[in-house]
């Protein structure tokens, strides 16, 4: 499933941003430009973080902002941005963030599968290390597509 969600145009590395909002918008923009979400989806993601706080920072350095299908998702998709410089999201434990993974769910069912795949991929610290040192989007894609092994327990 990840192959359909994370397309080459959805990945950007070494992006310079001003702050956490800028970071989310940079990642969301990739999906807008590729016709996967409406611009209001990006506003919705920023709104959720404003409202709920830095809940999106799920692990050290990794943020997974998202919003709901009805917030303007056209096609289920994932974007991945690696920041040139990490930024603070306000999460005392997991800040600063250098990896933003945006999940735009098409509906609540397919969302669960995509989330599980991303979670298992990011759970593997080797994958995260290689994400942080990847030289280009093609490498990231190969890593993500090659990295998923159903049923593999890594820890």
């Amino acid at each position: 499933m990840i192959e359909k969600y994370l397309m080459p145009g959805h990945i950007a590395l070494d992006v310079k941003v001003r702050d956490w909002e800028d970071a989310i918008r940079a990642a969301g923009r990739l999906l807008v430009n590729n016709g996967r979400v409406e611009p209001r989806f990006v506003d919705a993601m920023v709104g959720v973080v404003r409202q709920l706080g830095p809940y999106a920072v799920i692990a050290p350095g990794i943020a997974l902002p998202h919003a709901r299908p009805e917030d303007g998702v056209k096609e289920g998709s994932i974007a991945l941005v690696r920041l040139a410089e990490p930024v603070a999201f306000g999460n005392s434990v997991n800040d600063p963030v250098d990896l933003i993974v945006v999940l735009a769910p098409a509906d609540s069912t397919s969302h669960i599968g995509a989330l599980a795949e991303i979670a298992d991929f990011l759970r593997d610290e080797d994958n995260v290390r290689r994400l942080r040192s990847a030289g280009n989007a093609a490498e990231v894609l190969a890593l993500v597509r090659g990295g998923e092994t159903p049923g593999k327990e890594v820890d």
Partner: protein
Amino acid sequence: MADIKKITCVCGMGLGSGLLIKMTVQKALDRLGVKGMAVTVEVGDVSTARAFGSDLVLASPEFGPRLQGGPSPVVVVNNLLSVDEVQKKLEPYVKKWFPSP
């Protein structure tokens, strides 16, 4: 007969962090040797977690404090992807619920 224990994983929006915690909890329970039917793991929002009696509530740091002092014990999870962390935090509860003979 031991009753089924319920763990509620809390998120803010209904789509995100609760589900992530749930996935990690299920892996942690496997590691702790908990049999499939002994514990149910659900995802809820802050109000659900208060309303329905849970044996344990897990939440990320944003929501943990709001839930403290409610009817169920609350465990805060910092790294929602870390099976190690969740396993360590669940262990005392699992030991209490299912004491070894």
